[in-house]
C-alpha cells in the first residue's frame, strides 16, 4: 500500500503511529533500551518458572514470548540508533510536557486519597484542580463546571449503573436513604 500521510500523525491510532521511520524522536532510544532491559528481566524470570524442562511446561509460552520481546526490542534499539535525531522536537515540549507530568501526579494522588477521603471529595478536588489548570477560567466557572459534572456522573453511576465507590467521609448511603424515605413518605 502506498504511504498516506495524514495530518494527524500523533499516535492516536495504530494505523498512524506516533514515530517516524526516518528520524528518531527525543527519548525514543531511552524507551527502547528500557524495553530491552525489562524484556531481559522477564526472560530471566520466565526461565525461573520451569527452565527447559518440557515443551508443555507452564514456562514454555512465557519463555517464548519474552524471548520474542528481547529480540524485537533489540532490533528496535539497533534500528533506532541508526536514525538521525529529530531536531525539531524536544522532550519537554513534544513528548513529556509539564501538563502531562502534573496530570499523572494528580492521578496518583487520586489513588492515594480515594480510600481515606472517599469518592465525592476526592473527585471534586481532582476535577477542580484539573479543570482550573487546563481551562484557566475564573473560580466561579471552574467550581460550577466541575461540581456540576461530578453531580451528573455520580447520579448516573450511583443510580443507573449502581457502582459502589468508597464513601469515605461523606455519608452517601445515609443521604440516599434520607431521600428515599422522603419520597416514600410522601407516597404513603
Amino acid at each position, binding site marked *: *500500500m*502506498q504511504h*498516506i500521510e*495524514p495530518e494527524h500523525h*500523533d*499516535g*492516536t*491510532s*495504530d*494505523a*498512524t*503511529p*506516533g*514515530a517516524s521511520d526516518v528520524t528518531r*524522536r527525543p527519548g*525514543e532510544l531511552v*524507551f*527502547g533500551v528500557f524495553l530491552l532491559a525489562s524484556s531481559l528481566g*522477564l526472560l530471566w*524470570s*520466565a526461565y525461573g*518458572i520451569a527452565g527447559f524442562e518440557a*515443551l*508443555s511446561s*507452564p*514456562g*514454555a*509460552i*512465557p519463555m517464548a*514470548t*519474552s524471548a*520474542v*520481546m528481547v529480540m*524485537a*526490542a533489540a532490533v*528496535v534499539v539497533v*534500528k533506532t540508533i541508526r536514525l538521525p535525531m529529530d531536531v525539531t522536537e524536544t522532550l519537554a515540549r513534544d513528548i513529556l*510536557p509539564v*501538563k*502531562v507530568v502534573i*496530570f*499523572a501526579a494528580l*492521578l*496518583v494522588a487520586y*489513588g492515594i486519597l480515594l*480510600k481515606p477521603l472517599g469518592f465525592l471529595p476526592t*473527585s471534586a478536588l*481532582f*476535577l477542580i484542580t*484539573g*479543570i482550573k489548570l*487546563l481551562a*484557566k477560567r475564573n473560580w466561579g466557572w471552574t467550581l460550577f*463546571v466541575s461540581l456540576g*459534572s461530578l453531580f451528573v*456522573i455520580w447520579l448516573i*453511576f450511583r443510580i443507573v*449503573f449502581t457502582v*459502589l*465507590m468508597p464513601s469515605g467521609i461523606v455519608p452517601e448511603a445515609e443521604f440516599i436513604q434520607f431521600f428515599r424515605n422522603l419520597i416514600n413518605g410522601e407516597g404513603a
Partner: protein
Amino acid sequence: MESLYDFLTVFAQPQLLLLVAVGTFAGVYVGAIPGLSVTMAVSILISFTFSWDVYPAISLMIGIYMGGVYGGSRTAILLNIPGAPSAIATALDGYPMAKRGEAGTAIGVTTVMSFIGGFIGIGVLALAAPLVSDFALRFQPRDYMLLAVLGILLVGSLSQGSLVKGIFAGALGIAVGAVGRDPLTFAERFTFDFRILEGGISFIAVMIGMFGVSEALLQLHHVNKDAVRQKISRVIPSLATVKKHLPLSLQTSTIGVTIGALPGTGGDIAALMAYDHAKRVTKNPDREFGDGAMEGLVAPETANNAAVGGAFIPMMTLGIPGDAVTAIMIGALFIHGLNPGPMLMIDQPDMFWFIVGALVAANFFMLFFGLTGIRLFTKIVEMPRAVLIPLILLLSIVGAYAVNNSITDVYWMLGFGVFGYFMRHYGYPLGPVILGVILSRLLDDNWRRAIISEREDLGRFFEGVFSSPLSAVLLLAVILIFVSQTPVWAWAKARLSRSTKGAEE
C-alpha cells in the same frame, strides 16, 4: 425460523431497542468528540455494565460501536480533526469539501455510505459466520495457536507502523496475560514473589489504561487548539450521487469486511486501505484527491462501517477478536460467563442472531441520527477539552475501580496508561497488546494441548502442521508476513519486476 425469532429479539423488546438507540446516539457523539474514542468508551462501559444482563449490555455496546465508527467522520469534515481513528482518511477530502461550503453534502454522503457499508458488513457476517463456525469445529489446537499469532502480527504489518514494534507489543500482551498462577499446574508466572500478582493483572485495568488514560494524556497536547466552524448546507444527498458511487462503495465495503474479519485489524486500517484503493481505481475524479474528491469520502466511510460486521466474524466463530473493540466485547462476554468460539454458535445461536439483529438496528439508528440533529451536534462537539480530559480520567478511574472494587486495579490502570502514552509516542501499536492479553490464555492452552498430543515431539508437531492444509496455510501466512518485512522481499520484488519488464520489451 428459530434464528429469525432470535434475530428479531431486539426489535420485539422496546427496552433493548431503546438501549441500542441510546448507544448509537451516544456513539455518534463519542466518535465525533475528539479525544473520546469508541475503544475507550466500550472499555470503560464494560466495567459499568457487568452487573447487567448480557443482552442489554451487548445492545448498548453495539450501538456505541456502530455509531462511534461513523461519528468520527463529522468532526473530520467540519473541523479537520478526525473524531475517531477510523475517520483519519475521511478528513483528507472531507475538510476541503467543507471549506468549499459543501459540508452538508459531505456529511450526507458520508452517512448514507456508512449505512451501505454497515449493511454489507452485517450481511457478510450473517452469511459467513455460520459457515466459518462449522468449519471452525475442525480446527485443531495448533490452528487456534497459529491464528492467534497471525492476528497479533497483522496489525503491525498492515498498518503504517513497524512490524517489529507490533511484534513486541503482541508479545508484551501475551506476557501480561500470563502473569499470575498457571491455571493448569498452579506454578507462579511473572509474579516476582508478590502476593498481589498471583491473581494476575485485570485485563480491564490494562484496557482502560491503554485506551482511556493514555489517550487522555495524549490529548493534553491539544488542549488549546481551536476549531474553525463551517456552514452546513443541505444534508440528504441526491439519489444520483449515491448511484454514481455505488460501484466504488461495493468494492471498498469488501475491503472493509475483509480487513475487519482479519484478526486484530479494524476500521482504522480498513479506512486507510480503502482510501488508497479508491485513489488507484478512480481514473477521472471531478476533483483531485486531497482537494475534496467525493470518492475520498465514500471509500473510507463504507470501509470502516463494513469492518464492524467483519470484526464480529472471528469473534463469534473462533473467539478471536477482529479488532480492539471486539477484543473488549469478548472480555464482556467472558464476564457474563459466555465463552465465544465455535461452541457458542452451536450451544447458543440465539446470542449470534441477537447480535446480528442489534447491529441492523444500530445501523438504522445511525442513518437516522446521522441525517438529523446537526445543529445540536455542532454545539456539543465544541465542548472544551479542558473539561473533557479531566472527566475522561475520572471515568477511567471509576471504571477500573468498579470491576473488582480494588485500588490495585486503579494503579495498574495508571501504570499501563503512562506506559501506553509512551508507546503511542514512539510508534508501538496498542492493538496487539490487548489482543495478546485476550489471546494469552488461548495461545497457552492450545500450545500445550497441541504439543502434549504430539508427545512433546517438535518433529511430530510440524509433521502434523504440514499434513493439514489449514495449519500449513496459516503457518505459511505467518512466515510470509515475516519475510515481507525483510530485505529479501524487496530484493525478490525488484528482481520480479525487472524480469517482467524484460519480457515486455
